[in-house]
């Protein structure tokens, strides 16, 4: 009896220790980012783990090197516009695939799912050539367009649409609403939390997008924050003090979005597994 209780206690201690270590390792780089932003480059690369006094200097130096309002505006524009369009087009398609009984529907849907497996590396050269031909290099449209019909989000909305009560749709039809009215006035409000989770996913994808913008955005006035921070950090002797301000600016929006919508997001992730 006592042995069992000791065993259980040891197991509890082990479990908390494991989670504690994992949680600490997960969070540590974020703490490191915060601490480093207050230190000089020399202190950062020698691993100083205490808050310093260089925050304002780093901050000023980053703003001197980078046109911060412009770059943040570029990122915000690409992200918000891209996210809005993706949610619109992909959720309409997801709803369409679930609600209608068109011929060939399943075959077309299977092909859409197949595109989930196409790696971006195989697309980027033709996409780049297309954009060059269309004179869209250095434009934000070129960043947004290829991501709008996002197969994973179509799949996600179709899965979620299965939970949309068909009685609602039938009642609306009796009341004389057209399909698009049913979609915008009934489906969208009812599926709020599905949209919230999809928003978090697509927002992060767009904000953190790197390879495609790296290829398309070559002029400094169109670049996004991830590109700018990356190029600052790729110098032979990067000025880490300055770079840390950039990594904070690059990370903060996704952190805020995540914390603001954490509950819906986790629920959405859980829903996608069923």
């Amino acid at each position, binding site marked *: 009896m006592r042995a069992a209780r000791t065993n259980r206690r040891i*197991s*509890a201690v082990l*479990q908390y220790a*494991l*989670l504690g270590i*994992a*949680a600490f390792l*997960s969070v540590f*780089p974020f703490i*490191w980012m915060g601490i*480093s932003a207050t230190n000089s480059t020399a202190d950062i*690369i*020698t*691993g*100083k783990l205490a808050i310093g006094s260089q925050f304002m200097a780093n901050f000023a130096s980053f703003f001197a090197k980078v046109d911060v309002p412009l770059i943040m505006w570029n990122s915000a524009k690409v992200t918000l516009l891209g996210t809005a369009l993706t949610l619109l*087009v*992909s959720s309409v*398609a997801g709803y*369409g695939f679930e*609600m209608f*009984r068109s011929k060939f*529907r399943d075959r*077309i849907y299977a092909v*859409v799912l197949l*595109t989930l*497996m*196409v*790696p*971006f*590396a*195989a*697309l*980027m*050269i*033709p*996409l780049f050539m*297309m954009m060059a031909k269309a004179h869209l290099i250095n434009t934000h449209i070129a960043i947004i367009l290829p991501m709008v*019909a996002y*197969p994973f989000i179509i799949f996600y909305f179709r899965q979620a649409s299965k939970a949309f009560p068909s009685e609602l749709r039938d009642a609306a039809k009796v009341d004389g609403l057209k399909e698009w009215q049913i979609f915008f006035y009934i489906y969208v409000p009812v599926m709020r939390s599905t949209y919230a989770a999809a928003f978090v996913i697509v927002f992060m994808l767009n904000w*953190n997008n*790197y*390879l495609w913008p790296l*290829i398309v955005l070559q002029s400094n006035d169109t670049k996004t924050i*991830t590109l700018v*921070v*990356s190029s600052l*950090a*790729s110098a032979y002797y990067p000025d880490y003090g300055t770079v*840390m301000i950039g990594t904070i600016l*690059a*990370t903060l929006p*996704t*952190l805020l979005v*995540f914390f603001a919508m*954490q509950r819906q997001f*986790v629920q959405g*992730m*859980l829903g996608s*597994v*069923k």
Partner: protein
Amino acid sequence: MASARRGSLKRYYDVNGWLFVTPALILIAIFLFYPILRSLSLSVYSGRGMMMKFAGFGNIVRLWNDPVFWTALGNTVTFFVIQVPIMIMMALILAAVLNNPQLKLKGLFRTAIFLPCVSSLVAYSILFKSMFAVDGIVNRILETVGIIDAPINWLTDPFWAKVLIIIAITWRWTGYNMIFYLAALQNIDKSVYEAARIDGVPSWRRFLHLTIPMLKPVILFTTITSTIGTLQLFDEVYNLTEGKGGPANATLTLSLYIYNLTFRFMPNFGYAATVSYVIVLMVAILSFLQFYAARERK
């Protein structure tokens, strides 16, 4: 009469259905189908920039004799063969522990462990680059604790650079995979666990004989998605190890090689497209294996 009405109703659904899916289908055709086919047609051409000549199987011959390609392929395979099992195992264990109903502070632990996958790939790569500097915080801590005697050259030693990439991806994605397992575990009937617990089955055996078998489909799914993700590895290697692919190409991946062939060296779209089809082929084979395994289950 009745059948005519049903016919028109059916057409009404058809038309509306098409209207709803058409915008997405057009975009997918332009930005996914066309490029993937264009890539295939490009792969039989060779040359600089837009000056391309038909090369037939020339690119495949070049591929076969290209040591840099084989290095990139080897690195890419090394990354997923070592990293994916480590990460899946860690994610499983963490999910199993977090699923314990008596556990306190569950939400806090879950959020903390999930936090890395909110960070941008570029930002965390830069953070890791500063943390793993020769005199950096990681070497410092390892020396203080007594795990190592001399600092490790994480960024400049070919072996340790690979290890660093593996550590970095594991940090970023373990929490992401863990969430899928947690979700699946919460759908499992708890009475099975209770019964096993009352019967005195120790927790490690419950994990081995209950948790893992019940999660098999999700494990398969996450293994495949993680492997495909590793096949496309770019942001981390580009930002952690000098853009070109690290010391002596030790961290060069296929995606980075394609990028270099297209935008860094003298551009050769045809050859780069050929290399990209190696990734397509690998993803196709892995996906086929997934479908095969899924069918087996039924």
